[in-house]
């Protein structure tokens, strides 16, 4: 046995807890999960059936753990793990499954196929066969956490420029984007890029919130690698920052995997050091609108709007009704995709796929069911509250010529706030027919 295989098997053993063993044992291979998967819907072949995918790991598990399989491997297709099998498993888990859990909710037994795909990802990461770019992105985030002074000055300069822009948009010279403010109530964790800082900053200022901006970004590529050690190190930057500043709450930008990991995983990784609440920006927007902390004009957006449920936010995160509440307050023509909410189709960009250029063709093909869904609504604006989903739907928009505008939820909220000046990209020339200009007094 080579060292690579030994590492992979050791990782499988370390992952083998009750939920994983259950997922490995429970499948009856009824095949009813096939159409639940967007890969299968886009290209109906046996290899795209979730049960087939999980069988690839089961064959290895059975060889190691099943009495009958050890005596008679052909009976259960049990297979000794070798380099070729590991390479195939790795490619499958990183390129043919977005960990969306749609198969799980559609399985009569509730088999957690993504849990098995995560186990494979962890094996591949440990054995060194995971996609390099994901490893690099996770490692660079960890390095960034070790020495923030390396980028902090440049970051602060950018924030000062954004502050000027924000004052212009809001018509208020007193608004600020506080960074590392001691004792603030909220620590807002953005993604890389002004588009995830400026609109939320406007909302926080309009709501007169006691907030501060994190110097780190919420994305966590360790999660995609299913590497808890790396993921913890990436998350630790923000946990430490929150503890240092003494905030009450962390608010995560519109990002599916970041929300799911900080809301549902990080409290387990840092039990005892994690005394703050985690919310998504979406929940905060819903609260501000409900409590009248920000005023929105419900008639601003009259073009057809549809909402894409990110798998990490909705099915895996429980944020299902909150974005719909926000949209109900700022749009007049909201159109649901079918299916939606917990049954929503994955766009094909999750699980880190958007970052893996080598699988672009596969990703675009798997996104066809989502593109068809969007087309069917006839909506002009597609709202997605997850960065990876927005990137994927943007690519689908181009590839399948959907002719839609893709927006973050916060951007539309800011537009409905009808401020003195519009957000970049929301100027009058970008509006759809029949829409009010997003500027106060128009």
């Amino acid at each position, binding site marked *: 046995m080579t060292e690579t295989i030994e590492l992979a098997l050791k990782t499988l053993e370390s992952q083998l807890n009750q939920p994983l063993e259950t997922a490995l044992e429970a499948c009856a291979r009824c095949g009813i999960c096939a159409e639940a998967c967007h890969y299968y819907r886009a290209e109906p072949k046996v290899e795209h059936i979730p049960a087939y995918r999980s069988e690839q790991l089961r064959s290895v598990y059975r060889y190691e753990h099943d009495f009958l399989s050890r005596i008679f491997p052909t009976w259960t297709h049990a297979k000794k793990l070798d380099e070729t099998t590991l390479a195939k498993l790795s490619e499958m888990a990183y390129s043919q499954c977005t960990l969306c859990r749609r198969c799980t909710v559609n399985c009569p037994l509730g088999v957690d196929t993504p849990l098995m795909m995560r186990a494979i990802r962890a094996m591949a990461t440990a054995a060194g066969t995971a996609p390099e770019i994901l490893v690099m992105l996770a490692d660079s985030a960890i390095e960034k956490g070790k020495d923030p002074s390396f980028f902090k000055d440049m970051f602060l300069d950018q924030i000062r420029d954004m502050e000027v822009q924000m004052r212009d948009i809001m018509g208020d010279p007193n608004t600020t984007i506080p960074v590392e403010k001691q004792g603030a109530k909220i620590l807002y964790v953005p993604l890389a890029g002004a588009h995830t800082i400026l609109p939320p900053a406007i909302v926080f200022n309009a709501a007169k919130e006691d907030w501060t901006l994190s110097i780190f970004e919420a994305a966590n590529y360790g999660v995609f690698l299913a590497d808890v050690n790396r993921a913890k190190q990436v998350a630790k930057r923000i946990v430490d920052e929150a503890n240092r500043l003494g905030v009450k709450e962390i608010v995560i930008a519109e990002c599916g995997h970041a929300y799911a990991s900080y809301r549902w995983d990080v409290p387990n990784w840092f039990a005892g050091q994690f005394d703050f609440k985690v919310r998504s920006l979406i929940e905060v927007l819903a609260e501000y609108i409900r409590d009248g902390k920000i005023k929105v004009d419900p008639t601003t957006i009259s073009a057809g709007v549809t909402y894409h449920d990110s798998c990490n936010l909705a099915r895996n995160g429980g944020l299902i009704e909150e974005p719909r*509440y926000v949209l109900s307050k700022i749009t007049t023509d909201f159109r649901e995709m079918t299916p939606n909410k917990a049954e929503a189709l994955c766009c094909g960009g999750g699980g880190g796929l958007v970052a893996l250029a080598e699988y672009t063709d596969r990703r675009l093909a798997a996104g066809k069911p989502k593109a068809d869904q969007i087309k069917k609504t006839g909506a002009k604006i597609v709202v997605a509250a997850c960065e990876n989903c927005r990137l994927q739907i943007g690519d689908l928009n181009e590839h399948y010529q959907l002719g839609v505008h893709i927006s973050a939820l916060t951007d539309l909220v800011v537009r409905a706030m009808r401020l003195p000046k519009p957000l970049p990209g929301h100027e009058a020339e970008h509006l759809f027919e029949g829409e009010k200009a997003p500027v106060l007094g128009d």
Partner: protein
Amino acid sequence: MNILLISQLFALAGLLAGVYGIYRRYLETKHRALPADKSPLKGNPMHGVTYAFTVGMMPWAKESTRIHMIAYLRGIGFHVGIFTAIGALLISPFWGFLPQPLALFLVAVLSLGSLFGAAGGVMRIAEHNLRGISLPDDHFAIWLTTLFMAVTALGVQNEAMRVPMYIIAGMTLIYVPLGKIRHCLYFFFSRTFFGKFFGRRAVFPHPEPVK
């Protein structure tokens, strides 16, 4: 010792072996770590578990079962048949006391179960996708349980069929913990984990709209 008694003892041995095997599996799985979830609740894990075993099992609760309604109902009928066969086997020494209508009802359920089983067995061979994901274990398990139900249906009516019935029953029960039939144990683990996961996150039962 007559052959009927030998076959009955074989079935009893099968039952004991099957129960012991499943119990061993249960202990092995329970022995594995169960990660504690310390994330703050959004929903209620117990409501999720209740949903997973009730409403969530209804044919209309999932897209997959809505579009494969016949296959799903076939599966339900097949499983009802299997559990009926096990129940019937356990009370087989008292079949002589069964009222005729109840005996006929048993035969009907078992016959339907074996028909559904046979249909499933044929589908596994004939249908491209199912064939592609099936293992020899799957084919064997479905035909073995189908045969078990069929001979039990015959055994209820015909004493001459009781020897083959007890032998097939013994074989089936011995096989339960060895092959795919052991998913009968993992069904309970799986739906429980499903319910806890989605219940905690307020995904299932479906949340109320925000007001």
